[in-house]
């Protein structure tokens, strides 16, 4: 049973923590003279958005205080950013509630009414734990700032990279200058870093301090119905996909061209071709993997058969659309087929490898 005292205390603390942001919101509301006629006037759309954002922020702060919910508090903060009040994101007084709301929520949900009578811990032990936790968290904050600044420096270096190769410049500019491209680049880098660091630290911690129960928990969480997958099957599927991707890519590109769906400008067409080549390879990889799963794992599901059928139907449709194959024709022209195929494969791989080259340059692996 929850303790009423702890619930009241956490509610008071949450209100105190949210007070600065609430005070800003209320002062902003007080500064406005709202005229309903102006709100619905589209010429004053910015003013309307501003008022709506402040009102929204105030509502979310009140809800955050009542429910001790950090997500609602963050939404309230972002509402302030919408109206150009960026300083709320840089001042600790506005950011600390996000962290402390977590602590308050843990306390309010986990603290039992008579738990003080159930716990026996020495004062020195309690103090030692609290002090060591403060040290750990403080060190984590300082360390995260320094590690963050190193990574941010690396991101800035990536964004300021200058590529002379004409073919790569368009994509490089998209990734470094365009905010959307930069977001994709930085997002992928951070996710990659996060996943690698998480896996590495977990392995390291388990190696240093092995635990039978933790290992059993990890093993039990795995679905036991998953069939055995041969090693390196993903790599094999990728090689097969790479070998069959060029004709598909060529046929799709030709089809899009026939329907005038290809971008007209040079930069856009290059970017589109790169995107298309990656997309074709990814989709083929998935289809080939599903198809071969039936052979590898004796998977009786219809998905693998369906994926094979999709592949055949796709090939047939593309060839038919392009008029390369006419079922009514008596024979298929094979004139210069080798040269034709060579050109198709060369075009595809040169597009694909230029992407790989760019990634290596951006990561600082290749000059």
């Amino acid at each position, binding site marked *: 049973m929850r303790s009423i005292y702890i619930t009241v205390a956490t509610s008071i603390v949450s209100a105190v923590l949210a007070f600065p942001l609430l005070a800003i919101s209320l002062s902003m509301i007080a500064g406005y003279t709202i005229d309903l006629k102006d709100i619905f006037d589209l010429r004053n759309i910015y003013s309307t958005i501003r008022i709506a954002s402040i009102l929204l922020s105030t509502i979310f702060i009140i809800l955050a205080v009542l429910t001790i919910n950090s*997500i609602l508090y963050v939404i309230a903060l972002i509402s302030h950013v919408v109206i150009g009040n960026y300083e709320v994101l840089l001042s600790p007084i506005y950011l600390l509630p996000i962290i402390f709301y977590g602590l308050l929520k843990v306390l309010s949900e986990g603290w039992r009414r008579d738990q003080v009578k159930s716990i026996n811990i020495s004062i020195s*032990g309690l103090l030692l734990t609290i002090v060591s936790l403060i040290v750990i968290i403080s060190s984590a904050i300082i360390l995260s700032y320094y590690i963050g600044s190193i990574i941010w420096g690396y991101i800035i270096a990536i964004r300021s990279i200058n590529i002379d190769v004409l073919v790569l410049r368009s994509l490089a500019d998209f990734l470094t200058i365009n905010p959307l491209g930069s*977001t994709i680049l930085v997002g992928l880098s951070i996710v990659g870093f996060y996943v690698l660091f998480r896996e590495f630290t977990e392995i390291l911690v388990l190696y240093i301090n092995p635990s039978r129960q933790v290992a059993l928990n990890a093993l039990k969480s795995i679905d036991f119905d998953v069939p055995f997958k041969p090693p390196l099957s993903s790599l094999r599927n990728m090689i097969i996909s790479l070998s069959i991707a060029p004709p598909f890519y060529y046929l799709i590109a030709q089809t899009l061209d026939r329907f005038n769906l290809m971008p007209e400008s040079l930069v856009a067409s290059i970017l589109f071709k790169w995107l298309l080549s990656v997309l074709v390879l990814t989709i083929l990889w998935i289809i080939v993997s599903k198809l071969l799963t039936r052979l590898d794992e004796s998977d009786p599901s219809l998905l693998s058969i369906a994926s094979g059928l999709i592949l055949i139907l796709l090939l047939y449709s593309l060839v038919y659309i392009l008029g390369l194959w006419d079922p009514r024709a008596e024979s298929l022209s094979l004139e210069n087929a080798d040269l034709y195929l060579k050109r198709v494969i060369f075009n595809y791989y040169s597009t694909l490898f230029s992407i790989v080259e760019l990634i290596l340059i951006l990561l600082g692996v290749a000059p």
Partner: protein
Amino acid sequence: MSSIVSPTSRLMALVILASSLIALDLFMVASTGLLGLAIIVFILILRVYVVLAQTVLANIRVITSYDGIREGDPLKVAYTMCNETVVPIAIVELSLAYPEYLKIIEGSPGALILIPPRGCITYKTVFLARVGKHRIGPLRAVLRDPFGFFKGAELKLGDILEVSIRPREGEVLRKILLNIARSTGLSKARRAGEGSEFYFTRDYRPGDDLKRIYWKALAKMRLAVREYERESMIYTLFLLLIDKSMLYGPYLNTPLEHISRIIAIVSRHLAEKNDWINSIILAGGRLQIGIPGRGRRGYVNIINNISSIDYMSIMNDRSDSENLKALLRSTISTIVSTTPRSPINLIVIASLDNATSVASELKHLQYLGKFTIHMFIPIPHLYGLEKISPFERAIYRIKTFSDTSRAQSIVRDIRRTGIRALAVTPWDMATRIIARIERMRV
């Protein structure tokens, strides 16, 4: 790997904030990218701490203990967790697995704790002990970081404690029983025979044991021997048939608890008279066969058998009437094969629901000649009436008159089979049992 710790919904707030800060910088609105990235690194460092603390918590040394073995006493259960590493463990959400039929009288069923580095913490809780065998524990522990962003997989700390609680014998009831019984101490038959109490002296007859010669009389030139009073020894076997209906009622005053106390006090009374006593308990589809014993040993065996009654198996018992019949047949064959040839008082206590089927199986025992069966059927709706006022009690009795009539009718049917059945109230059960046993004493 990801099953070691998992993110909570609270982490979403921090991720949204960090993403917003980075996006604002990339869109050249504000220089907040570094802060956003620092928050992500902070999340990662926090995660490393939680993984480390989780492995430390999984390897923690846990000492379990309990104190209290008698019904009605505080049953103190303690788990001492000792962290031998330098890593502080915070925050751990503990919850104790315990049977729902046990009442906590001090402390809480869970707690939020911090485990100090190179230190110990004790979690204890106090139950109000009730008769039978109970399984308490283990402690379920879920680790969270101090801000609740990550949550570890649930760990089980400590062992499951198997606690056996003995019935409490009321002193008042014991004195009443002593008054009802013919005498205190060993029962005497008022006849000469084998025994330990001096009865009288008589003249020596050829064939008398030399050990019995009364030497003081020989000094007066009279050859006499001592005669001892023959001890009246009886064999009493308690057959207790427990079903779910015996578990319902006020805490510490359910039919099962009341019957346990009655059997304990009656067996103690018989033990003081040096009688042979034994018990067989059929509970939760399981047969608990006691060890027959005389005097104190027999009493201890009966108490141990009662304190082994497993509540959980009774509650989870899904056996039907056919299973009960099969078990009863097995019980009867056990009784026949394990009891001596001398006359036996078989004290059967069964619930109202099972009484008829029990009687129909047990009646065959009477044909063997050595068994005198006394069947006692507690009237369940009369339990716990001590807690209410006399007026309310009278009203309640009127309202439950039909149930009492039903009990009486079942008893009449059983009596027709030749078994001496009796519907008993909580107040007269002990005296009725003792009266029946004493009547059988030779």
